[in-house]
């Protein structure tokens, strides 16, 4: 029993990460009908921004020991800034010029951006991992026979916090409403006086902020940042977005947790080597039997 609880906690931990990344896919898909395959690299770049920030504090100050809450906040902030700047640049350079091109063109461009960013970081780090300084307090809480480390609780909590923040932004703010309006009907949104190009950029920004912040928290959790670290979580999160229904914000969250839990239970039932298999089996199954996902819209009204 304890083992299942433990697995559930692991699933929620990973699921929250998938969900946060999946939101970026789903938001961009909503406004552009395009899969930003470079989105996982924003997560990776966020993790690097975080590790370099914390290493900087480590080398020049004693703040990592004296005031870890400050340095962690600064690391998350830097992760957001770097991911957002990159997202704005990639939209401007790689996607906007292809706005009226056939749908395959921006997709290929996105894969190009992804390969580019990964290789820049491979080169910069000489393919080595950057180790996160040990800033987070060790230890865990025990509930009965189940023990949950503080860092795991932190990751679970932060991913929920990020998601709630994004959800409120999309649902309650004027800009969020404009994003939903552009997602539904770009021409009509323009007739409302909404600057569509600007709204698309803001959509990238929102998704990137989430990916960058999550990248830092995830990096702290696993203890390092590496050039290849965005690839698998990126593809898993894409799977989560499709599971939940691409374009649907609640769907991305649901899909993320569903996938995280599925993986955790698979580890127990079939062995850890099947963990990655299950994600793609689910993806294929959903694409065959329910291509619009759990919460997506059945029809695509845009021709």
């Amino acid at each position: 029993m304890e083992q299942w609880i433990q697995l559930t906690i692991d699933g929620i931990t990973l699921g929250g990460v998938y969900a946060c990344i999946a939101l970026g896919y789903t938001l961009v898909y909503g406004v552009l009908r395009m899969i930003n395959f470079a989105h996982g690299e924003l997560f990776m770049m966020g993790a690097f921004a975080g590790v370099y920030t914390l290493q900087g504090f480590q080398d020049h100050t004693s703040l990592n020991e004296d005031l870890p809450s400050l340095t962690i906040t600064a690391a998350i902030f830097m992760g957001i800034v770097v991911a957002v700047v990159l997202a704005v640049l990639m939209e401007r350079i790689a996607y906007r010029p292809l706005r009226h091109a056939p749908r395959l063109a921006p997709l290929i461009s996105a894969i190009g951006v992804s390969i580019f960013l990964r290789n820049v970081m491979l080169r910069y780090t000489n393919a080595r991992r950057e180790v996160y300084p040990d800033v987070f307090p060790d230890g865990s809480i025990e509930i009965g026979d189940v023990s949950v480390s503080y860092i795991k609780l932190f990751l679970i909590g932060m991913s929920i916090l990020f998601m709630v923040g994004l959800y409120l932004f999309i649902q309650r703010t004027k800009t969020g409403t404009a994003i939903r309006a552009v997602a539904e009907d770009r021409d009509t949104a323009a007739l409302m006086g909404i600057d569509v190009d600007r709204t698309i950029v803001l959509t990238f920004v929102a998704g990137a902020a989430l990916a960058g912040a999550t990248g830092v928290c995830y990096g702290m959790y696993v203890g390092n940042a590496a050039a290849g670290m965005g690839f698998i979580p990126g593809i898993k999160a894409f799977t989560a977005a499709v599971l939940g229904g691409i374009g649907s914000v609640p769907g991305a969250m649901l899909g993320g947790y569903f996938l995280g839990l599925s993986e955790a239970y698979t580890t127990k039932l079939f062995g850890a080597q099947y963990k990655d298999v299950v994600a793609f089996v689910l993806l294929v199954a959903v694409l065959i039997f329910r291509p619009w996902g759990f919460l997506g819209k059945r029809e695509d009204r845009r021709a």
Partner: protein
Amino acid sequence: MTANGSDVSVIPHAAASSAHLEVEDVVSGYGQIMAIKGITLRVDTGEIVALIGANGAGKSTTLRTVSGLLRPRSGRITFEGQKLDSVAPHKIVARGISHVPEGRAIFSQLSVRENLEMGAFQRKDKGGIAEDMERVAVIFPRLRERMKQDGGTLSGGEQQMLAIGRALMARPRLLLLDEPSMGLSPVLVETIFNTIIDINRAGTTILLVEQNASMALQIASRGYVLESGTIAMEATAAELRASDRVRKTYLGES
């Protein structure tokens, strides 16, 4: 109800030119197909002008070109004396033109209130927006009851009310209406057209595209007949109603 818009449009520009909107020799369309092939029309301040014609004559293309969704291939469009062609659509809204597109195009997944808020997207005056929200609710009481519902749950008539109400939220001085009668029962058409008259009396100039030519010519002061992308006739509404050609082709009389 306040006659917003009117104070701006009626006085200062009337002196410079009586024309509110001028479309001169405009060619426009989609890709290689030019749906309008050099049309010239004028809407004066305070008027209701009807643009009638068959399906595919270029009526919607004309409106979409004025509101900036389509860029004219050639020709000139001026509004209140300022050039409008190749200005982005969201900036055209800021200049005082609102376009209610064909098929209403309300945001089905946004609530009625959110739809109205989007209509006022460029405005910062919270008090004024609240005032106008109330004004729209007075004009269309059925919307008031449905403020929290998703737009997609409304009936066709309610969606048309929402589309018009939403356009008014921008306080336009010129309102472009594309087929407001489409798919509505005769009673609802009557209601919508009465509202259009009220909106016009409150100071908003209107360019009305309609297949229902008889309704359009009842409320318009002047009209244009569009045929295959060119202006076939131009006259006062009364003259058009009396013309044999219009009666046979567009009013369904023999």
